Structure formats: C-alpha cells, structure tokens
C-alpha cells in the first residue's frame, strides 16, 4: 500500500480525543487502537458501543471521550448505528442538522460481540450498506468477563474456560475464526486489519476508508495484558511481534479485493510471539509442546504461501489439526 496521506508519524494528529485517567487496564491495546483510530477520524464522531471492555469507558459521571457515545447492548450495536445514521439523515433532510454538525457513526465492539452474539446484526448492517465505521478490538477472548474463549481465540491458547489440565494440555483446539473473510463475503467497500504497532498503516487505512460511502470495517488485534499475561509495557511490542511473525497479517479489501499492506521481509518464528505470553506458557513449560507450536507455525506458513500464490481467498485454510478438532 502506497501511503498517500500518512507519510510520517508527524502527520498523526496531536489532538487527543481521549482524556487521561480512563478506567481501562494499564497497557490496554484496545484503548491504544481506539485513540489512534479516533485521531484519524477527527471530530464529530458518535460511538455506538456493544457490551465489552470498552463499555466501561463511559462510567457515570465521567467519559474520557470528546465525542458522543451511546451504549446499546451486546448483540446490536450495528443496529443501533443504523438508527443513529438514519436519524442524522432524516434531520439533515428536514434542515434540522447542518452539514458541519453531521456525525461519523462508529460501532465499537470486542471480538466476542463481533464474532458471536452480534454477528447477525453486523452482517445485516453490511448487507444494508449502512454508511458507518466498525472497529472491532480483537483481544481474542471475552476479555471484560475475565478472558473466556471466544470464536477469535487462537489455537493453543489457554483461556479461563479452557484451562490447562492433564486431559487438555494444549489449550484451545479451535482455530481462530476468520472474521475478515466472513465480512468480505458481502464485499463491503472497505475492510482492513490494523495494529496499533503500525500507526501509519492504521491511520492511512482510515483515511482511505473515508473516501467510501457504506460499511468501513476494521479489525484491530488488541494485546490484553491481564488476559494474555504479559507486562503492560510490552503491549506495542506484542502487537508488533504478531505482525512480524505473520500471525496477524495487515491487509485491506476494497469491494472484496484483498491486498496485503505490510509483508514482513523476513518472518520471525511464531514462538517469538507465543513465548512472551502467559496464555501460551504451557507450550514451553514444563516441557516443550513441539506438535502444537509446529501446527501454529504451519498454519501461518500455509497462509502466507497461499498469499504468495495469490490464493488466500480460496486456499488460506489452516493446517490439519494435530490434536483433532
């Protein structure tokens, strides 16, 4: 991706859309993603929130946001956004809302809401061509309730509902569900993965998305210090390793056409990423789980070899499970 607007870090706004002292965890990757995302969006934003970690941002009587906010429920933020967008358009048509008072409508959800309980309302909003932004902060779990397995949980991860026991020594045996591909089926105008460790890539994508009317969808891999078990100061580093190992591909799809926006010149081995996180500790201690690590590496390798063969849409399937489904 050739960046048109965000050519250096200096281009990123110095305006802070998020005030200090919010209630989220130290080192929260979600807050970092939200901050960068909001900087690129600018002013006049309405957030429509689904239940998750971010719901606690607005805790009466405080909100860290300089923009408007409404919490709906867990399953239906995209439907709430439909109502907000439609009402703004109605008010504009009636001459009750000037163009400079118009709002960008942004759904803010975690992966639990995006992948599971809210998938139906999301697919419906994309189908209706709703003119909105959607930011899924993907911490690969139900984070706010204490790190339970979601459909985004990666293979081999320990979670609160998939503890490491003698009968379950490998962690989760489900592959992470590919939300990007699920959304891409409907060929929305703009769809991208982002990472807070690559702020220029992230910001440029929001700039590019802004040229389109209709659904503009983003999935941000979101390191979660308490859930993933790492020191909060390493949030950005973990996010960077996810990209440099090839585990989190940075890409976009314009009307369904996929392009990778950052391909590491040399991929780091996945264990560089895994070994830094307590949720994968059982793969290394007390003895190395070679089979599981190899499987995770093979899945990443398969993905990128398919990309090289330009077949990611049809042949990006994960490697066969070493431990069965």
């Amino acid at each position, binding site marked *: 991706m050739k960046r048109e607007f965000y050519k250096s870090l200096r281009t990123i706004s110095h305006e802070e859309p998020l005030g200090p002292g919010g209630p989220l965890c130290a080192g929260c990757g979600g807050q970092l993603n939200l901050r960068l995302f909001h900087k690129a969006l600018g002013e006049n934003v309405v957030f429509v929130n689904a239940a998750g970690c971010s719901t606690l941002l*607005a805790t009466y009587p405080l909100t860290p946001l300089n923009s408007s906010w409404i919490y709906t*429920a867990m399953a239906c933020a*995209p*439907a709430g956004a*439909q*109502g*907000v967008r439609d*009402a*703004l358009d109605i008010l504009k048509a009636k001459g009750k809302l000037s163009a400079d008072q118009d709002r960008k409508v942004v759904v803010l959800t975690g992966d639990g809401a995006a992948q599971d309980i809210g998938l139906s309302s999301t697919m*419906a909003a994309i189908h209706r061509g709703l003119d909105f932004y959607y930011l899924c902060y993907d911490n690969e779990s139900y984070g706010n309730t204490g790190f339970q397995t979601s459909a985004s949980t990666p293979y081999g991860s320990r979670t609160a509902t998939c503890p490491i026991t003698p009968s379950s020594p490998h962690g989760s045996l489900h592959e992470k569900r590919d939300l990007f591909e699920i959304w891409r089926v409907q060929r929305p105008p703009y769809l991208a993965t982002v990472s807070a460790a690559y702020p220029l890539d992230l910001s440029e994508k929001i700039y590019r998305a802004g040229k389109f009317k209709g659904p503009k969808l983003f999935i941000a891999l979101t390191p979660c210090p308490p859930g993933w078990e790492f020191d909060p100061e390493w949030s950005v580093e973990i996010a960077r390793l996810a990209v440099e190992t090839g585990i989190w591909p940075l890409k976009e799809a314009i009307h369904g056409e996929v392009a990778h926006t950052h391909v590491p010149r040399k991929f780091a081995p996945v264990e560089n990423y895994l070994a830094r996180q307590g949720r994968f500790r059982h793969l290394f201690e007390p003895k190395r789980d070679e089979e599981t690590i190899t499987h995770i590496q093979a899945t990443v390798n398969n993905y990128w070899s398919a990309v090289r063969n330009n077949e990611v849409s049809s042949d990006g399937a994960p490697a066969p499970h070493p431990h069965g489904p």
Partner: protein
Amino acid sequence: MTRTMLTGNAAAAWGARLAEVDYVPAFPITPQTEILETLAGWSQLGEIPARVMMMDSEHSMLAAAVGAAATGVRVFTATSSQGFLYGFEMLYAIAGLRLPLVLVNVSRALAHPITLEPDHNDVLSARDTGFLQFHAETSQEVLDSILMAYRFAEHEKILLPAIVNLDGFYLSFTREAVEVPAPEETRNFLPAFRPAYPLLSNREPVAMGAAVLDPSLYSYFKHQMHNAAENVLTIYPKIAGEFAETFGRRYGIIEEFRLDDADYVIVMTNSFASMGKAEIKRLRQKGKKIGLARLRLIRPFPHEELQRVLRGRKGVAVVDQNISVGKGGILFSEIASALYPLADRPPVLLSFIGGLGGRRFRPGEFDGMLAKMENPTESAAETVRPHLLFTGEECRQVGRFFTIAREEEPSRET
C-alpha cells in the same frame, strides 16, 4: 375528518401516519405485519415522509429505535408475541434511556405450544420495564391511543416510551368504522416532535447509556423512572381533556360500563371486553346489578382510579387473559393490592383466567362468575387461587384430539 372502515392494524398504521413519525424500524411477525407493510407502502409511494427500515430481528429493530430516538427523531414501531420477547432486552434499554417512542404490540399468545391467537402474556411481560401501557378495545381506540401515547411519552415530566396494545386477530383483522382525523386537526393536539432531552445530534458531545457503578445512583435513576411514570396519572386529565376538545372523544383511564348502580363488577381489558359488555347487557336484562370496568391504562397502574371505581361494591371478578404460571392472573394480583388498604373494599374479589390463546367465553360463564360473587362459598385459601375457565365440552374435545394424536397408522399388511 373521514369516517372509514379500518382493521385494528390499519388503524395503528393511521395512528403512526397522523403522528407524523419520522422513523419506523421494522421486522415482520404475525399478526402485526400488516401495520409495517402499510407504513412501508405509504413510505415508498411518498404518501408519508417516514423512513421505514427493514431490520434483521426485533432485537435489532428496537436497537435501531434506540439509536434514532437518541438522535432526535420521532420513532414508531410494532411487534407481537415472540418478536416482543426476542427484542425484550431492548425494552429496558429504551425505557432506561428515557426515549419517548411508541411501540404497538399486537397481542398473540406465547409459544410453547405455538399459536397465533391472542392473550396478554406477551405485553404484560413488559409491565416492569418502564414502558407506559395503553390497552385498546376498538380500532378507533387504537388510532386515538397512539396519538395520546406520544403526548404522554414526550411530556417533559414523563419521558418514557409507550406501548399501545391491541388483540391479534380479534381486533388486528377486524374492520370497524373509524373516524380518521385530518392532519391539521391532529397537529393541534400533537405538534411536531421537540425532544426535551439531550441528543446524539447535539453540538455538544453526550454520553448515553453510561455505566453506573454506584448502587445509590442506580436506585436514583430507577426511582426517577417510577416517579415519571406516576406523573402520567396527574397529567392524564389534561391530555385526555385536550383530546376530547380536539376530536370529541373522551377516554378515561378506566372505561366504566353500566357501573352506576352496579353491586358486582367484572374487570377486563382489550377487545374481549366487547364480549364481556354483551354479557353484562344480557345479565342487566335479567335484573342483575352488574357492570364492567375496562382497564385502559395498565402502566402506570391506576391504583386510585381503581379504588374509586371498585370501592363499596359487593363483589369484583377479575378476568385475566393471561396466566402467571404458578400464581394466577397478573391483573388480579395488582387489583387486590390496590383495594387492600380500603375499609370499604369489596368483600368478594375473585380471579378468573379466560381467553388464553384466544379462547372464547362459553355460554353460562358470566352467569357463573356472578353466582360465585353473589354466593361466595369458598375458603380464603381457595378464593385467592384462580378459576381456570374450561368446560366439560372442551375436555371432551381435548380428549378427541388426544385420540387422534395417539392413533397409529393403519397397518397395510393385513
């Protein structure tokens, strides 16, 4: 004003049309669908400015209603039964956010077993949500109640959403003569929407639906909702009076039918009250001093009005078209609580469950209810339990269904 024949559903659509609603999020379900089809048709033809948006479920439909009302437009929607329950979570959201929209529920009994005919377990499940509830007997009342519901809902001392309820099939698909007011006339009673609350479209940012982690704060906001709902009772005479002045039709909180000298009172709601009234007329011809009180407003609950209407009577029979399984009639319990503090409360208060799944009353049932009020023979323990209306003939009919269900395929080998 035009006089025309309208089904209950068409009257509901006309109510929304005359209220000049801006936005109608929609999802189909029998027997309500005709309301949204009618509005969608008008919208497509440009006959109404409202935007009708087909959503992916009732939950999404009500979420879109939240978003739109929070942004500052007048919202209308409708549902029934299972759909009402599917969107149930959002009823609390709408009420808790104090968004003054109107939702028409076309009552239909709840699965399982699945059925299409009406009773009120669907709408009464929302009695604790914070929605105001108006229950209509006729098509005219459906239209009129929608206009009045917006006045109450949008009132700055109330700011709560409202449900207007009508019975599926019996009213939704029954054509009745309806006076349809002219738009200018309606605007005199219900002016254009001017939201009396902060909006997402305001220049200044707002945060709505913020978490409240302090129990006292939570209690405070809930108490506020309760007090706001009770304000309906004091504001009611003014708004009903203005309605009567504008349109010539006066609606009480409770409709009093042949109650003047009545010793005995049957309490009912919705369209089945029409059947009750016919029975009252018949019993009156036999010289019985009996009347009918029809509850129109169920939330807020009109305790004082009920006390006024029922105090000093010899007997009251509450016919609940609902069943709280393991307890009995929902309205019976509420009415009992309203009457308890009265020194001259009716000495006999009986509970009857009728009309479940659209069951019609059988000949003799109202005579039986009256006889039980006139000659109470039951113990206190028996009196508080509901009488489940069911006849021997129905038992035999059920038996015939059982026989058919048990019948094996005739063997082909012989």
